[in-house]
């Protein structure tokens, strides 16, 4: 089963990759509290799409599991999985645990 620490490392690597693509001096700070999207966030809607797609691909590569980060379940979470780096890591850990438990 994927532990939160490994997932966090993968998410930070994704953030590194996204930072390389951000323009106009924008950058996402490597912190669990960094807001990704919405009020106080760095990413626009296109940037968020890019982040989600990159994260899905990295998770597949690192954990050998295909995950879909955006579905009805993600939409119905009380706190959006895409609010901060921390919520994204938590959500991916939860999804991987569910996949692992069948």
């Amino acid at each position, binding site marked *: 089963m994927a532990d939160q620490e490994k997932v966090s490392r993968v998410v930070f690597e994704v953030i590194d990759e996204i930072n390389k693509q951000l323009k106009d001096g924008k950058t996402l700070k490597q912190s669990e509290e960094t807001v990704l999207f919405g009020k106080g966030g760095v990413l626009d809607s*296109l940037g968020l*799409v*890019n982040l989600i*797609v990159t994260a*899905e*691909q990295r998770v*597949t590569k690192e954990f050998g599991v*295909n995950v*879909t980060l955006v579905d009805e379940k993600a939409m119905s979470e009380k706190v959006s999985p895409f609010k901060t780096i921390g919520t994204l890591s938590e959500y991916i850990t939860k999804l991987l645990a569910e996949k692992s438990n069948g």
Partner: protein
Amino acid sequence: MAESRVMLITGTRKGIGKYLAEYYVKRGFRVIGCSRSPVEYELENYRHFCLDISDESKIVQMFVEIRESYEKLDVVINNAAINPSIIPAILMPTSSLNSSFQVNFLGTFLVSREAAKLMMRGQFGRIINFASMAVRLEVPGESIYTATKAAVISFSRVFAKEIHRLGITCNVVAPAAIETDLSAAVDADALAEVLKRNAVQSFGEMADVSNTIDWLIKPESQAITGQVIYLGGV
């Protein structure tokens, strides 16, 4: 020399899909094809996946393998389609509606969605979806098939607006009737009658389709998106 372009074509076992696979391999593309059954031909620079295009997990896995093997995707042609029941809607079985939407619309959607995820990394992509002259001609007996193709058109036009910022275009080609297994299922007299309503009243050729696609997939065609091109003067 730049690495050759990579193209995915759905429904390559026969008909237009097979023709396009052969045509684009000859033009130097690395072609990936898929269909429910294996193909009975071999082509250099062609790789085949056996899958049902309405099976999301299989589609996602195919794209994982495309990403790992080719690292990019330049063109997608969503050709696969079925037309299981040509009968008045009043007699149409629900199972025909379900299978038609699964393959013709859901399949097109899944492949387009996953393709765009792969294409966006290279900031380039060309998605070609197939509709039909039936959408304009509104042929009795083809209500569900026509509805699936109308759905493909609406989806493609909206999708084009969403993905153009990613360097990807999405257009629809609606061939006139071409002699394939799909058109063979239609009564010949009825088909001739329908074709009389077109500017071009004879059967279309496969080359009409590839000629149109050649133009749409050119790098210079970046401003052509969200369009529906009816062949045969429908």
